[in-house]
């Protein structure tokens, strides 16, 4: 198999890596020598260009791939790990799945980089930000391009690290550091699952090596694992597939913020908004869906695991949607919306229609990135106030942002023919027609499908609430009393990353002209707090920020329609269909259901939008009646608090008990006892130490001679050595 046209794929990996290195190495000198404004501009372009170049290379490789018949290649560069019988090469897998992800990552990634050059223009640590961001892209690309589980795992950990670094980007604020720590630690739980799954697969393949159909020492490469488990985990060993699948799903849950482990994602909003758009909406959190697609054979083999995926997915979708209703921070609403949409994707995957999950990944990447970037633009326009209760009627002031967010809003709500409607509809129809996911023979995905319809309505509703509070209604910030604004409940402090304004960093901004920057720098130290005041005039964002918005808006509008025509996307991803037919009937969609479903789901979306407008703009009188529910939802049903208490406090108590009881009582006594025995001996032996170095040397010589004599004697006994 000639892979030479694909050798260039390494460039996709190296470009962001080199970009990251360039930021680190050149950032300081360039900004120092060119001056702040020009230097940051130059570094900004230096950050965008590698990603753009990677995107272009990605497009080229995809074009090459599309011309081949097998559409599945693997480029091996060198042996990365070679221990005993296991060999893990540095191989990049080039197939439709990975290239789809590459295009999304580099494409959306370059747009968001462009946006960030404007958004972060006033940041003093400009190169650091972009080095992290470029590094993230590189890690994400390793994740999706890796041809074996360890490489995917390296990327997996790498994006976790970058996510941690970027959430805690303004690390001087303790809340941000805590959010970053939380994200990192919660992700560890997921990684634990992924690691165990990986080990399980490796070990089960290694010990059954004799009976493997595909014999290779690359135990962890996908093209070795998947055909092998297909043969290996059958009959009495079917439960192994379930175990492995669920372990891998735990990993996916952690990275993709599914129910038990979703905790970190809302807190991750502490990072800069472009980060939220790139990592916590468009790319990293979809890694779980990617993994499920990559190892989908395991899930196909296990109805139980598929059922778990379905149920977890739909529960997360519903749960997060309810929470999203009560949030007042614009980024938090979007965060919960992301969690909810990820739940959707898992419903699709759990129902055996893996391409629907990826389809939603792609469309969601477009419109959710757009929503986040738009939210960033709104936040910028409102002097980084994130509380939606201070917004209102902004469509008059920031028309471009409004227009693009309008498209995204309709897309996420699922209005035909915008992209969201197609992907959502495909997921729901897959779920309704599916027989795969089942607990002990009773299928679960139909129920999930109906609930998903309800969630579609809820999604439309809360997104309408967001839009209505932001762009319609009275201009609520006008009602502010001077000095009285701010954060009126405690939790909010965690969410707004602005206390760094004190040391000259600012989360918002754009390319000022040199004169403007000079004026700004002349007025240093600038205000302690860019507070929102009653006479604030929101201003439209600069081109470097709205150009990505417009491009994303076009993609959000058209991508779904384009990819869905004649099942283009499905046939692109799974040209040969799925490897095995699940127990029961294949997940065929009943003819005619598609159109009907489209109607139903669009009706649900329109209803949601209608209710949203009605309740948000006119329905103030219901608010007091459901206040308790709102409180519950606002506090995530106290799930977060319970988990934190249990883990932090419980862990602390447990540790303290261990320390005081076991460590001090038992271990210390043993250790001290041994030490005192040794001390006693030592004080006896001390007498022999004269402190006379040459005497020691003489003794050594005598000892050596003794050994030699014994050796010679032994050799003599054996009849002389050679």
């Amino acid at each position, binding site marked *: 198999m000639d892979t030479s046209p694909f*050798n*260039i794929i390494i460039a996709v990996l190296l470009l962001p890596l*080199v970009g990251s290195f*360039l930021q680190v*190495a*050149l950032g*300081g*000198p360039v900004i120092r020598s060119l001056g702040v404004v020009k230097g940051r501009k130059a570094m900004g372009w230096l950050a965008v260009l590698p990603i753009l170049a990677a995107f272009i290379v990605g497009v080229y490789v995809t074009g090459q791939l599309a011309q081949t018949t097998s559409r599945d290649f693997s480029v091996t*560069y*060198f042996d990365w790990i070679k221990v005993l019988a296991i060999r893990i090469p540095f191989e990049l897998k080039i197939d439709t799945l990975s290239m789809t992800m590459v295009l999304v990552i580099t494409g959306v990634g370059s747009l968001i980089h462009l946006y960030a050059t404007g958004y972060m223009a006033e940041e003093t640590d400009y190169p650091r930000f972009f080095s992290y961001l470029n590094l993230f892209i590189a890690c994400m690309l390793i994740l999706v391009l890796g041809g074996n589980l360890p490489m995917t795992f390296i990327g997996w950990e790498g994006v976790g690290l970058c996510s941690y670094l970027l959430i805690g980007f303004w690390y001087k604020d303790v809340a941000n550091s805590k959010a970053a720590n939380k994200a990192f630690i919660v992700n560890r739980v997921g990684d634990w699952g992924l690691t165990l799954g990986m080990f399980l697969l490796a070990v089960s393949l290694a010990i059954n090596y004799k009976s493997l159909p595909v014999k290779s020492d690359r135990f962890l490469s996908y093209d070795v694992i998947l055909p092998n488990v297909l043969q290996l985990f059958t009959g009495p060993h079917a439960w192994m597939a379930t175990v492995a699948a669920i372990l891998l799903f735990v990993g996916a849950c952690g990275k993709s913020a599914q129910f038990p482990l979703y905790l970190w994602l809302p807190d991750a909003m502490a990072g800069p908004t472009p980060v939220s758009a790139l990592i916590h909406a468009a790319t990293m959190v979809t890694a779980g869906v990617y993994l499920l697609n990559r190892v989908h054979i395991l899930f196909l083999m296990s109805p139980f695991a598929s059922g778990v995926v379905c149920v977890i997915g739909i529960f997360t979708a519903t749960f997060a949607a309810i929470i999203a209703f009560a949030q007042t921070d614009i980024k938090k609403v979007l965060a919960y919306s992301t969690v909810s949409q990820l739940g959707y994707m898992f419903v699709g995957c759990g129902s055996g229609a893996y391409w629907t999950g990826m389809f939603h990944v792609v469309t969601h990447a477009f419109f959710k990135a757009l929503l986040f970037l738009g939210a960033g633009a709104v936040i910028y326009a409102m002097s980084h106030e994130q509380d939606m209760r201070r917004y209102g009627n902004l469509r008059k002031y920031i028309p471009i942002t409004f227009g693009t967010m309008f498209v995204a809003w309709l897309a996420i709500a699922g209005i035909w023919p915008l992209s969201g409607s197609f992907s959502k509809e495909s997921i729901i129809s897959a779920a309704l027609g599916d027989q795969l996911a089942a607990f002990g023979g009773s299928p679960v995905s139909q129920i999930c499908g109906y609930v998903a319809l309800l969630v579609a309505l809820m999604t439309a509703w809360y997104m309408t609430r967001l839009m209505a509070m932001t762009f319609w209604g009275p201009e609520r910030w006008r009602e502010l009393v001077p000095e009285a604004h701010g954060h009126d409940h405690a939790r909010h402090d965690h969410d707004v990353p602005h206390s760094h304004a004190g040391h000259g960093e600012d989360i918002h901004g754009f390319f000022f002209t040199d004169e403007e920057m000079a004026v700004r720098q002349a007025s240093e130290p600038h205000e302690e707090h860019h507070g929102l005041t009653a006479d604030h005039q929101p201003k439209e964002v600069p081109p470097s920020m709205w150009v990505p918005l417009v491009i994303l808006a076009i993609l959000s509008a058209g991508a779904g329609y384009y990819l869905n025509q004649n099942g283009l996307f499905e046939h692109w991803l799974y040209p040969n269909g799925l490897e095995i037919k699940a127990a029961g009937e294949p997940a065929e969609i009943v003819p005619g259901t598609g159109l009907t479903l489209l109607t139903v789901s669009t009706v649900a979306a329109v209803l949601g939008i209608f209710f949203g407008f009605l309740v948000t703009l006119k329905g103030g009188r219901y608010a007091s009646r459901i206040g308790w529910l709102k409180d519950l939802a606002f506090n995530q049903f106290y799930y977060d608090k319970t988990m934190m208490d249990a883990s932090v406090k419980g862990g602390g108590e447990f540790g303290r008990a261990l320390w005081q009881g076991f460590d001090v009582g038992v271990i210390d006594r043993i250790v001290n006892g041994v030490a005192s025995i040794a001390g006693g001996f030592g004080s006896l032996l001390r007498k022999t130490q004269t402190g006379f170095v040459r005497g020691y040397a003489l003794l050594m010589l005598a000892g050596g001679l003794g050994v030699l004599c014994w050796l010679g004697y032994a050799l003599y006994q054996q009849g002389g050595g050679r």
Partner: protein
Amino acid sequence: MQSALFQIGKWFVHTPAALQALIRVLLYVIPLLLLVPMFIWWERRLLSWMQDRIGPNRVGPFGLLQAIADGVKLFFKEDITPASIDRLIYFVAPAIALFPAFALGGTLPWGPNRLLTPMADVNIGVLYIMAVSSLGVYGVVLGGYAPNNKYSLLGGLRSSAQLISYELAMGMSLAAIALASGSLKVTEFVHQQEMPIWGADQAVWIQNWNLFTPYGFLAGIIFAICMVAETNRAPFDLPEAENELIAGYHTEYSSMKFAVYFMGEYAAMFVFSGVFAAVFLGGYNFLPIRWEALIDDYPAATAFWQFMQALNYYGAPIWFIGKCIGGLSVYIWLRATLPRLRYDQLMSLGWRCLLPLSVANFMAVGFWVLLTRLMGGMEQFESDAQPLATLGLLLIDVLIVMVVDRVYRRGSGKEMASRTIEMVDPPVLRSIELVDGGEPVVPANG
């Protein structure tokens, strides 16, 4: 002429190996010994010219015999041997100083002819250069120790520290070239430099002199600096800094022993210039032009190209010696231009600037070699990614310069002032701490 040379070569090949070696050694040592006075004359004249003076012009034509007259004078001067010296070492030290300067010439390729190839064309040529140049320190150190004189001792100490510091960077810069050439032989270096220039598709008629490649350029600059430091020449002539140490390590030497030190220094300069020319400047080639490629490309002027090729071939020793003399002149130029470094500057230049730079250069070359291997063979890689790699390598070099510049600057200014005191380190200062204002404070019980 051609046939005469051929005859000589034929005779030479058929003589016994020992005699061959002896002839080569004599061919090398005797002219060098004779040339040293010329070098001294050249230095004095060039220096005078640079300083707008006339210089020696009385003895012989253009004062050419001045150096010989000085030699005669030195020879007949009284040889003062101080009392309370380490007699054996005192007498041996100048000879030791002379030895490496001459031994180093063993690897110099004087020309493509067999007679002119290095006497020791072993496959460890670079290591040999490193080994022999590292022996140069003994003459200085012993000369500093033997006369039991504080100034001499300080000169010797400085010299040993200096040579150890700069040897590493020198070794690493040579190692980068060896890695890129894929050989340790100096003759192989020269052959490599006759290839088409690195990274170019079009200008195949330009030779690949190492100084023209990015890594070679960096390595060449590092090597040149280290080479000046290794020969204890200005601006690195701290071991014989006259305003602090009288004459440093040779304070107590007079007459012929002093002259031997002197000769050693000049021979070393010449030979190091030769090493530089062989490793970085295309060896015995006249110009960095591949005449045979020009014959292919522009056949119209074939006769001229062939003439130039022959000139290049038969004049090889002349070009090589010309390059050596050029190097010598740069030495003299440096002496006329640059003031002497301070000791801490010397150390930080060696350890903080040159060493990391040369190691980074070595790693860059290594990375490049690895990349060519990864990309599956030179040919494909060169067609695919050579421009990219070229750019990357250049970029890496620039980056390194910037990073090192940053490192280097960190040591300057206020911090350095206190560091200097720490380095001088006489026992008296040991209990004295500098407080912020720079006021020395002696502890109460100190």
